């Protein structure tokens, strides 16, 4: 029992350090606050993969009573620690991702056309902004066929990650 508690304490201490590090990267004024618009990046780079909706809920938890546009570290730390301890918003495994693409490609061609991708990404789910769409297209689309071969795309992205 004591061991478990010790291990938890160690884990929490380690999480605290990780969270602090990530937070500080965006703390441009060195005053323990970050712009609320960067919180998503911080949370995601700590290993979590929330949806936009989940992200908004999280932000609501760490925001001030009267939102100032800034998030303070003192509020962020405990909330984020809980998230990490509970292993919330786990990343998506490769095979699940592949299946998602296959759902959008019912004919099982192995690819999506550029227009199809644009349609799905900008009209369905939690739609992309134009910037997000353009950025994804630049890396994903094979210019010769004007389509995305999603299996290769996933493999490439995953290698790049690690």
């Amino acid at each position: 029992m004591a061991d478990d508690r010790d291990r938890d304490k160690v884990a929490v201490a380690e999480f605290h350090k990780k969270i602090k590090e990530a937070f500080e990267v965006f703390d441009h004024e060195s005053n323990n606050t970050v712009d609320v618009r960067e919180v998503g990046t911080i949370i995601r780079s700590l290993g979590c993969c929330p949806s936009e909706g989940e992200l908004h809920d999280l932000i609501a938890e760490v925001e001030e009573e009267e939102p100032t546009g800034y998030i303070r570290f003192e509020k962020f730390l405990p909330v984020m620690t809980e998230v990490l301890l509970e292993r919330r918003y786990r990343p998506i495994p490769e095979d699940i991702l592949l299946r998602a693409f296959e759902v959008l490609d019912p004919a099982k061609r192995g690819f999506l056309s550029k227009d199809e991708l644009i349609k799905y990404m900008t009209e369905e789910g939690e739609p992309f902004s134009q910037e997000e769409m353009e950025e994804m297209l630049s890396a994903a689309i094979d210019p010769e066929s004007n389509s995305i071969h999603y299996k290769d795309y996933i493999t490439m992205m995953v290698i790049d990650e690690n």
Partner: protein
Amino acid sequence: MGSGTSTQHHFAFQNAEKAFRAAALIQRWYRRYVARLEMRRRCTWSIFQSIEYAGQQDQVKLHNFFSYLVDHFTPSSHNERDFLNRIFTEERSPQASETQNCGDYDSIEVPDSYTGPRLSFPLLPDHATALVEAFRRKQRLHARYVLNLLHEARKHLVQLPNINQVSTCYSEEITVCGDLHGQLDDLIFIFYKNGLPSPERAYVFNGDFVDRGKDSVEILMVLFAFMLVYPKEFHLNRGNHEDHIVNLRYGFTKEVMHKYKIHGKKILKLLQDVFCWLPLATLVDEKVLILHGGVSDRTDLELLAKLDRHKIVSTMRYKTRKENKKQAEEKGNANQTGSAGRPSPWFLPQSRSLPSSPLRPSTHKAHRAGRSSSVPCGVPLDPKELSRRVRRSVDLELERCRQQAGFPAIKEKEEPSSSESEVDSDAEEQPQPTPEEWRQVVDILWSDPMAQEGCRANTVRGGGCYFGPNVTERLLQKYHLQFLIRSHECKPEGYEFCHSRKVLTIFSASNYYEVGSNRGAYVKLGPDLTPHIMQFQANKATHTLTMRQRISRVEESALRALREKLFAHSSDILVEFKKHDKDETGLIALSDWAAAVESVLHLGLPWRMLRPQLVSSLTDNKLAYKSWLENLAKEKLSQQNIQSSLLETLYRNRSNLETIFRIIDSDHSGSISLDEFRHTWKLFSSHMNIDITDDCICDLARSIDFNKDGHIDINEFLEAFRLVEQSCSGGDVSDCPQVTNSSNRDCSSPGAH
């Protein structure tokens, strides 16, 4: 509706829902990917910045090292004293040297075979344009024209006030550009995109034209040419890199000597003077102040406008007055090595001359007479003889330095009076700035803005200060200004506003750290003085890369630099690791790894974020540190056969080494003798507390004398350690010999690491 249709609808609805969810999943995954890329980009940026600034701190430490030498070194032999003397004195050609300078280039013949641009004076606009075109085609300007142009530039600069006054009545627009740092492509791009300078198109270039990039010479030529052609519309401000001492370290000196092997020294000497004559700031419509670094809470524009800017030769050291001719003759100083010039100590202990500098060591190291007086590889001295010499030589040395400095007594405060500026027709008395004047100039060339209120010493750079929004506000109000434009700091977007848009940083060297690392920018001020920013990135290749590829490239470069730094401190890091591994398991937890590495490198980097890129294999979430360190070394060791701890030391101190080389090589010949190297290295390592035996120093020196002629070819040495930037060597990279020196395998008594 028939049942068929409702089933269809049901299916359609299900499918739609599935598609919705699939899309949401893909988006969720993609957004995380982008976030992680962004984090990597920020970390990469931190790496570059922290390494860059750490390098600047090194410069200050080197600065302190020579100061320490003067205070504490006891040369025990005539050779050593001579050697020290040579480091500490600098030849100055006579000030009244106008005629000499003319002779300097008039006598230089330009061969008929020379196909580069030929200049005639007074310059015409077409000449300046042709010069840009010639450089774009990679031509080189002949030394004669370089000297001629510099000479004319100097004549013009001398007439300018410290603070240029510019009005938008005459030119419709003013374009302000920031640091260029030898990147000619960026300058050409700006002229292409924005238009060449003209009476209707005024330009202000805000300092740091040289160093780091490979075309500093060409940039200067173009800037000076346009300045001569459009004197009312083309303005230059001095930056902290327009400074011959800084140039020793950051590549400009090297570039000049490489491109102009015969006349380079003359060019550098003239440049030293030209730099001092650059104006310090530009004021537009009395509303917008443009200067290179920033301001401090003591910035006094009236004082800055009045002082003699030419007195400030270098912001790296506060030079004190030289002895006058009479004193020299009286003392009959036999150690003078100067010919035409009168030697003067180019370095004096900061404690006497400088206003407080943040990085000055608080206590000088204990006197090391016994240790440093021995000559490496020489005959060991009898201890009694040693101590006698020590006592005598300490006094002698200090006395000599004081005399040279013109100090009648130790405690006298440094205070030049106006009578000092009277010039003896034969002597080259040069008036000195007061400490306050010097500090005012350092502040405007070195300071950086910060977010917090107040004003504190800029410990990162070692000079100037960090100034807060209240300092800016007070200054703007005091002088009725609207805002400040400054440069000095690289920004990812090429520009950045701060202090409620009262301070604009503009930086014009794109891809400064690496291809894809940042954009460059320039700012245009119209009659209403509203700033309009234009951004660019001079390398076409970056446009075709995806964000991911761009970030990867820059990141690789940063990581390489970081790994090198880690390697350079392997021994210290190993010691720290062992502290966290009392049980000697050979493993260390990641948390401890991060703490250990930071405690040695002091870079303030997010190590846990960087960990995946630096540490690949873990056992049980722990790192086998010995093999990790060995892997860092492997990459380096295979190239050279020099004992690894020495190699490590060299890597750690390589910028200092290079600077030391160039200082020792006072005639810019490109080679220094083994003895000189040994002497300096010995002194340097004892100052820096590098524990290294005499044997090792001998071995090291011998091993880098590649052709065994008793001399070290600086460029060869640096190339062997891959210290020379590829671009600077130009096509010579392939000519450099591969290091296959195998005579040094066994260094019997390795340095105590």
